[in-house]
């Protein structure tokens, strides 16, 4: 592992000097912290983290290495990694490479050896904080100017599939609108024998409906939901026509499509220990979350949406259901990975409701 130094500079000028690992690119962007103690491989490859500099609060990252099975997309997606300590000699029977090697391969820079708990405190207190990981020769003032002027980019287009593909199955036909989908969503669907068609985020309503889906899933993904206007537009009409499940970004898009608004969270929720209450069953579950935005509750009153799940700690909306149409959505990740998939019954609930559609679409109930 290289032992060169590297810096992390925040928009307010706060500077951390640490050890470099991974790729050598200089990157800037919003910094978020994730509190999971296992699951760094899934997190790094989760498209919801696209363009985010990710700080792991757990101090030692990499102890079980990186394996070929636990990726959530084809490549590493975070833009930078901040850790207290990187483990260069992992131990696990499936481990094939180190995290350093993985990040090097994708030219994603990492910085280690800084007081990550202090940085977490700053992020917690200040909310959205931008920063830049760079080599020491980049000028500090320049970085600060760059960070202050930086605009939010359109990100979904960079993580969504560019053309549709099929994961065949004999059961229900599901179209997944890929906003930056985690592989685990596909796992959950294939485990339930679904016939899945994954389509790009900007696929039109007609194109989607030509697949005769029994139901549509709008996946998780990165960025501000309001930026993906095409998808919002498409979903607006889809809501009237078929059953929909939204997850993460997909949940926010449904809210926007149904007339509600979204807003930034004071501090992003990234981790796998968030308690969320199922309001109907009055039961709390531990969920995985990765979000910086939330549906603004005050904007729900003029819509046909009701709240189905709520966070017990910050009371944010964690799930919605449409009063008229078979449309449901959750802010958290029912598929886990990392974290528990104890809420994956949501897939079952959703799929069960599709039985009628399946018949109407000419599908067989029993293959």
């Amino acid at each position, binding site marked *: 592992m290289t032992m060169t130094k590297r810096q992390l500079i925040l928009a307010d000028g706060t500077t951390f000097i640490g050890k470099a690992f991974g790729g050598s690119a200089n990157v800037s962007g919003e910094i978020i912290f994730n509190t999971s103690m296992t699951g760094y491989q899934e997190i790094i490859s989760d498209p919801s983290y696209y363009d985010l500099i990710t700080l792991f609060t757990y101090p030692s990252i990499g102890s079980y290495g990186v394996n070929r099975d636990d990726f959530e997309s084809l490549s590493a997606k975070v833009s930078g990694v901040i850790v207290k300590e990187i483990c260069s000699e992992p131990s696990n029977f499936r481990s094939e490479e180190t995290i350093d090697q993985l990040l090097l391969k994708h030219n994603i820079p990492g910085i280690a050896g800084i007081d990550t708990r202090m940085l977490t405190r700053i992020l917690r207190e200040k909310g959205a904080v931008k920063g830049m990981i760079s080599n020491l020769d980049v000028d500090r003032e320049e970085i600060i100017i760059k960070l202050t002027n930086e605009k939010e980019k359109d990100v979904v287009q960079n993580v969504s599939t560019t053309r549709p593909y099929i994961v065949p199955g004999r059961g229900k036909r599901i179209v997944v609108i890929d906003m930056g989908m985690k592989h685990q969503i596909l796992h959950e669907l294939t485990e339930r024998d679904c016939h899945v068609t994954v389509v790009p985020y900007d696929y039109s309503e007609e194109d989607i409906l030509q697949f005769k889906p029994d139901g549509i899933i709008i996946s998780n993904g990165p960025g501000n939901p309001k930026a993906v206007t095409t998808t919002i537009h498409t979903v607006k009409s889809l809501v009237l026509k078929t059953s929909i499940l939204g997850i993460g970004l997909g949940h926010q898009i449904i809210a926007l499509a149904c007339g509600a608004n979204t807003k930034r969270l004071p*501090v992003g929720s990234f981790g796998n220990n968030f*308690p969320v209450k199922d309001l109907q069953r009055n039961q709390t579950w531990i969920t995985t979350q990765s979000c910086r935005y939330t549906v603004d509750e005050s904007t729900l009153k003029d819509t046909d949406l009701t709240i189905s799940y709520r966070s017990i700690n910050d009371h944010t909306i964690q799930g919605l259901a449409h009063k008229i149409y078979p449309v449901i959505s959750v802010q958290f990740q029912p598929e886990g990975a990392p974290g528990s998939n104890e809420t994956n019954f949501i897939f079952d609930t959703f799929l069960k409701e599709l039985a009628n559609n399946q018949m109407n679409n000419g599908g067989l109930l029993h293959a």
Partner: protein
Amino acid sequence: MPKNTEIEKILVIGSGPIVIGQAAEFDYSGTQACQSLKEEGYTVILANSNPATIMTDHTIADKVYMEPLTVEFLSKIIRKERPCAILPTLGGQTGLNLAVALNESGILAECQVQLLGTSLEAIKKAEDREKFRTLMEQLNEPVPPSDIVTSVEAAVNFAEKIGYPLIVRPAFTLGGTGGGMCDNREQLEHIVQNGLKLSPVSQCLIEKSIAGYKEIEYEVIRDKKDQAIVVCNMENMDPVGIHTGDSIVFAPSVTLTDRENQLLRKVSLKLIRALEIEGGCNVQLALDPYSFQYYIIEVNPRVSRSSALASKATGYPIAKIAAKIAVGLTLDEIINPITGTTFACFEPALDYVVTKIPRFPFDKFVSGDRKLGTQMKATGEIMAIGRNIEESLLKGIRSLEIGNGDLYLQNLESISEKEIKNRLEHADDERIFVIAHALRRGMTIDEIYHITKIDPLFLRKINHIIELEKEVALQSFHLETLEKVKQFGFSDIQIARLWETTEEKIYEYRYENNIFPVYKKVDTCAGSVESTAPYFYSTYEQENESIRTDQKKVIVLGSGPIRIGQGIEFDYATVHSVQAIKEMGYEAIIINNNPETVSTDFSVSDKLYFEPLTLEEVMHIVRVEDPIGVIVQFGGQTAINLAEGLRKRGVTILGTSLEAIDRAEDRNKFEQLLEDLNLTRPKGKAITDKKIVHETAEAIGYPVLVRPSYVIGGSQMEIVHDEEELSTYLQKIPAIKSNKPLLIDQYITGIEVDIDAISDGKTTFIPGIMEHIERAGVHSGDSIAVYPPQRLSESVKQKCLEATDKIVKELEVIGLVNIQFIIHEDDVYVIEVNPRASRTIPFLSKVTGITMANLATKCILGESLQNKGFTTEIYPEPENVYVKLPVFSFEKLRSVDTTLGPEMKSTGEAIGYDSTLEKALYKGLTASGITIPFEGSVLITVADKDKAEAYKIAKRFYELGFQLYATEGTAKYLSDKNLPVMAVGKIGTDKKNVLSIIQNGEVQFVVNTLTSGKQPRSDGFRIRREAVEHGIISLTNLDTSEAILHVIDSATFRARLITEKGVLEA
């Protein structure tokens, strides 16, 4: 969901005396539970026979019964108090077993008492190995192939089917008592035979060995709404095969991917749901290092040692939450006490690494079997927190107080390669040091991995420490290197060793260069939410989170891991001191490293620093806090030992001065002190030259008492009767040096007396005198102590008071002092002065009603005893009699001799009280786990010097209707005096012999005294061990025997002969 309003009075069952496998963690959980229930408005009745606990303080529960934890006594309590419910899940295995027994006795139904937390069905399903297996089958969860047997033959048959190695586990025993691994038929037969006896249901589980798998634990909580969470998972460094209680453990897991973690998490939650536990539960799992194959090892349907650890490791107070759940509250409505803003329904996130290391008693039991296996041997444990594994581990190692705290044992330098390999293969208590040593010698990680099956990741971390050591050694006083290794937890002592300089020099060097640690919070949420809990650990990083307040503050040093000689009593005193400091309006800061205890509950003090108790670490905290001073009186020898170093670095020691401590502890100064005060002590000398040992002993006159100086709990102290024994002794102890002298004392027979006094510098107040049943020569911690004294005259008591007052005045004691006397024919000999809180503080506080540690702390902080209405006197004695009994863990410690002597061996204590000594003793003995047989047989086999006395005892046994057995010599002596006695053959003779009658349960008592010297494995030793292993009462002291006879006598009727004229035979 609201709490249950149908119940109002709850009986909480404690775990009783401390034994290996069931220690202070249940004081912590019990205390939390009682407080938690009171918070909710319930009336709490507590039953616990362990007086050394905080939970038995009258402030913790509404009513406290320190009665024996048996069905008999609990039934009385239930009938009297009529509680609506029982909470048995916080009193360890004892609590659960009692709940089952109470139910079976019918009392619960009779008094309509409901069980909270875990249903009987669940207890049985989890604890009964067969039911557990059936449940696992139903749930489709894997357990290693196994069979339940009730006979040795069945065990052998099963073994033939599945092959060796096998694990034997007796059902319903504590900490794996009686279990073990066997590689062949002979071992199997032996262990099973034993196990069947020890199991209350005569059942053993024979199981395929899965040694070498990763051992992983999950601490889970569930509520009645079926909401369930994992508080923490933990990975054992030592793989399956070594009891988790004896393993080094890291939290959270280190080598598990999220997938493995989720797999095991899911199983754990499935189990707690299947058992429908409302509260906490511990799930132990084994995971194949090379696949996803896992097995369930066991489920403990209650809070446990691991849950105490998990609570301290995460900040999530499991017992407190479990108690609330037991009365119907649910996780989503209970506030997380550490953040104060979020709910208990979440899974803590850690941003540090926690290490737990067990503390073993083998510094005391030098000849004990030190090998680690499936049966737990540790008496206590420490926990350390750091920002990487190396730091956490090294902090943990110095918290153990082994040697000088370095990951280095000098005595390993001389052992051979072969022996190292052997010790790696058969792990013992020094395993971590052996691994470090093997790595230093150049053994590869691979080699060590293949022998130990310890995951290479952990070995690499240890190796990293060794590599860093090499790097350090290359560059003396190199700042960058120093800064770097400090981040990996190196201590000044360790660096000093490598730079061949002193700890002091390193400290100065750091001081000059401003290299100090910062403090981070333990907050359950990895910094994601602001936390208010004042719970800190140190690390070398940038931002310090421990902010000094303006308030005046006092630091109290805790007593570290529980070990023989320094038990939970010191934690009790520490907690009381903290309370007093708060009452006086100061900020109370505590430093300690024991995860099992009440003192390390962050809600006890104003600030908790979870740190090693070393000079270096304490100084760092002093630097951050700038207290008015440090109190060292309550943390046992651990804290006292730090006083000198602290003073040298300019820290104020509050209370009794360092000089006074030294005058009491330094042998020569102590002698001088007594001489000056005109007080008598046994003749004695401190010897620094081996040559004159024999002549000195001769001059003093045999028998003499010998021991190395400066030791806790009488380590390596022996009574030596002649020259030959003295020579044997000298071979066993470390070399005599000028700074480590050998002490030789005249041995005095007499009544031993323990006095604890409190002084403010003017008044000397003695809450009570305790008299020992056993004559001097049995360590005060191992003898039965009686309060108030039964055999002391008024004048002797006055002499004790006067002597105490003199000593207190001369030493200018401020706070507590403990003095031990021997009373010999009305003469009062002073044998020891401990200028600190002693083991008897909690007991005496409870029986006299004077909260001694609290009062002493107030004196230390300047309050006057006189103003509080105390004078120089012995507090008036009560009518009733209170006894404190030692409790041993000999079942767990194979090869440890059970003979009582000047070296302490007990792990815990129990109390008994009633209107007469006999009744009190009966209760105390019962509470200490002894079921007194009122009929049957007794085997007597004593040393020649004891025969005359033993005759009296034998005679009484005979008169009470017991059949006498004796070994030849003793039998002859007794029959010569006309006692009918059956002689039994020596060990090895084929007919009925001394061992066979024990093994076959033909005797109920064994009275055996030590023959001569301490040759391990003598016949006497085997007899004593055999008795212990078969659960037969073994009395090694004639005074104890007599006391028991009194009890039997008072509770039985003997057949009496009418002689002429209607006179009864004597």
